């Protein structure tokens, strides 16, 4: 079935086409079903391709599919070609799988939205772009997908664009991504100038021709690119604002798939990274710093989705830390596990928001486990996963990364374990505030009862929180199952072992921690104890009281004032420059040039019009005079020429 690889991308594109042509006519919910079926079909094909790939007997299982010659210009020969190997296959499987579930969930979540068909239109296009990104066999095809997901992210973040905040959040996401894209593009140019190809495998075969300084430059430029896409320091603030989008978008794009594109890209170019230790160290430091900073911010956020957003940034930091250590398999492991549990957490948060009629403030929730039992159970599984409580998947994935960090950079391991403690704490704080404690939601007995606030829910909803319909809870169950059991991928030698499957892709580039089994046990016990202790602390603190100002420093609530910093350093000077252009350059220079030209012609015209007397005799004198001059000229030429 390997030759059907192109169908994986084509099916969501077909769904996109159908919705583009007939989305409005299909309406709610048929348009949602069309979109969902397109993605589910793509998932089915992916599974088929995966099973066929398993049959391939080679040191590195891979399959290349050359679709057509895309840019045939002299030496610049670019093919629209796909490349399937365990790395891209892993991505494809979890992208299509989780997309299917989130599409299904969205049918329930977006029910009754004015632009219901448009939502699925963008979602299908997003899935297709993401698959192009991971399946591309050269940098340019990847870049097409890269820009495609960025564009869809923009559309979906500002999906409710009539809200000012949503419109500007979309813009912000786009601008931050563009900054990163400049780095990515420069890296592509540099690769081309050295090896005259974009194909990954050819680049890796010719890695000696690039030169070590250039490899470092390429890696660092790529790092700039992935910083934007994967929200690493310093380009991370957009991800928190991106929560303005509908919650399924946050789950799919800003937790499970798009933001992991950077991690994928770095894994894809692992031979380049391996050749540049300084770039690897930079990536590790950026990752560790991001993981820590984002975790501290998440401790003080009040919006349920913002906590999850910063938690995503923090987890992505872990993945970068793993890549920086050379532990690509560990990064992929956390990426897959994270896709499951963070997708689950976001969908759970969406269910909470849905059940509370669009309430996102943690301080106005409380005791929801009594009202949303299914959401609570599934959310709790996600919570314990991300907090890395054994034996759930997060424990294995994070433990894998921390072990490798311990072996490679013990200093960064300390940052990692502190972050793990913070992660356990803030996720327990979120759970405590939302699901435990007193009822604090609007309309609760002891809460304020706004009169008109729920007038728009007169369509049969009571103001009491309600559990979501089956179409939303089924994806929650499925995701929580996978989030819980994804740890089996850590068991080496089993048929689910991730290491057996993807290690050959990285070959000798992969870092092996070679820890003794006693060291591994010690580290695992430290991880487990830290996780459990901080889960208990967080839960104890926040299920009893909802206000603890000492633990919510305004510095952390304000996200280290990083937005204000960028405003001051980049925003204000840019505004001043724009004002200078508008007030000085435009009226003086631009208008001056235009009006000056017009004025010069008007002046010369008013001089010349005096010659137009209207009297024939004046013109005749002119003709005579001209004739005399010409005659005189000819005579002088005759005499003196």
């Amino acid at each position: 079935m390997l030759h059907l690889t192109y169908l994986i991308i084509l099916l969501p594109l077909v769904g996109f086409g159908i919705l583009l042509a007939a989305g409005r006519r299909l309406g709610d919910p048929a348009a949602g079903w069309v979109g969902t079926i397109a993605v589910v079909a793509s998932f089915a094909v992916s599974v088929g391709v995966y099973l066929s790939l398993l049959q391939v007997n080679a040191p590195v299982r891979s399959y290349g599919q050359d679709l057509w010659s895309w840019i045939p210009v002299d030496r610049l020969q670019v093919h629209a070609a796909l490349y399937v190997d365990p790395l891209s296959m892993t991505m494809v499987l979890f992208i299509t799988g989780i997309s299917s579930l989130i599409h299904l969930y969205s049918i329930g979540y977006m029910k009754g939205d004015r632009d219901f068909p448009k939502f699925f239109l963008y979602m299908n296009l997003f899935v297709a772009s993401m698959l192009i990104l991971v399946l591309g066999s050269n940098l340019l095809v990847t870049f097409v997908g890269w820009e495609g997901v960025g564009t869809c992210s923009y559309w979906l973040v500002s999906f409710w664009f009539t809200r000012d905040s949503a419109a500007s959040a979309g813009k912000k996401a786009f601008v931050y991504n563009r900054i990163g894209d400049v780095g990515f593009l420069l890296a592509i140019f540099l690769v081309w100038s050295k090896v005259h190809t974009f194909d990954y495998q050819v680049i890796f075969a010719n890695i000696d021709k690039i030169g070590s300084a250039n490899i470092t430059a390429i890696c660092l430029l790529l790092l700039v690119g992935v910083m934007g896409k994967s929200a690493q320091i310093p380009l991370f603030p957009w991800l928190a604002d991106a929560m303005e989008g509908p919650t399924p978008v946050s789950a799919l794009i800003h937790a499970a798939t798009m933001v992991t594109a950077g991690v994928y890209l770095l894994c894809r170019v692992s031979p380049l990274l391996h050749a540049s230790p300084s770039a690897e160290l930079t990536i590790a430091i950026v990752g560790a710093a991001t993981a820590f900073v984002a975790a501290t911010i998440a401790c003080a956020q009040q919006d349920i989705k913002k906590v999850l957003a910063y938690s995503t940034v923090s987890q992505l930091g872990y993945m970068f830390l793993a890549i920086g250590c050379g532990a690509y398999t560990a990064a992929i492991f956390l990426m897959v596990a994270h896709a499951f549990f963070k997708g689950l957490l976001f969908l759970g948060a969406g269910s909470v928001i849905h059940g509370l009629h669009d309430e996102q403030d943690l301080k106005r929730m409380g005791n929801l486990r009594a009202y949303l039992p299914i959401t609570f159970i599934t959310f709790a599984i996600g919570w314990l996963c991300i907090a890395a409580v054994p034996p759930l998947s997060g424990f294995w994935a994070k433990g894998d990364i921390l072990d490798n960090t311990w072996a490679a950079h013990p200093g960064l391991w300390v940052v990692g374990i502190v972050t793990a403690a913070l992660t356990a704490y803030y996720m327990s704080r979120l759970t405590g505030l939302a699901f435990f404690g007193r009822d604090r939601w609007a309309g609760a007995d002891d809460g304020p009862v706004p009169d008109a606030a729920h007038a728009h829910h007169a369509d049969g909803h009571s103001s009491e929180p309600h559990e979501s319909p089956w179409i939303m809870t089924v994806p929650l169950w499925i995701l929580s199952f996978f989030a819980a059991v994804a740890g089996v991928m850590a068991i080496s030698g089993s048929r689910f072992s991730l290491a057996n499957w993807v290690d050959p892709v990285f070959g000798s580039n992969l870092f092996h921690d070679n820890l003794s089994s006693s060291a591994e046990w010690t580290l695992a016990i430290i991880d487990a104890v830290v996780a459990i202790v901080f889960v208990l602390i967080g839960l104890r603190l926040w299920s009893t009281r909802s206000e603890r100002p000492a633990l919510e420093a305004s510095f952390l609530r304000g996200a280290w004032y990083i937005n204000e910093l960028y405003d001051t350093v980049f925003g204000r000077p840019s505004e001043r420059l724009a004002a200078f252009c508008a007030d000085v350059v435009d009226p003086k220079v631009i208008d001056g040039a235009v009006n000056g030209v017009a004025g010069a012609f008007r002046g010369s015209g008013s001089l010349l019009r005096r010659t137009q007397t209207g009297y024939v005799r004046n013109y005749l004198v002119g003709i005579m005079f001209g004739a005399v001059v010409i005659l005189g000229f000819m005579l002088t030429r005759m005499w003196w020429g």
Partner: protein
Amino acid sequence: MSISPAWYLGLSTVLFAIGAVGVLVRRNVLIMFMCVELMLNAANLAFVTFARTLHDIGGQVLVFFVLVVAAAEVVVGLGIVVAIFRRRASANADDLHLMKG
């Protein structure tokens, strides 16, 4: 015994000068027209003279072209003059300076 070509050329020059001055100083459109004709025919005379002196038939051929052009010009010009005269009952060229810039 033929007359020297210089006399013909001299006559041609005198006729041309009379025509040129007439066009410049007179205001009556019809007189100006006649002066233009005078200049054209002065040129014709010079052409014929040179054709004869230099034994080149080209000069005489050119005269026929000039005659045709002059005839056409007169047709159009007199037509315009008649049209203007109908509207203004005047043939004074200075009355017509609508095209003043």
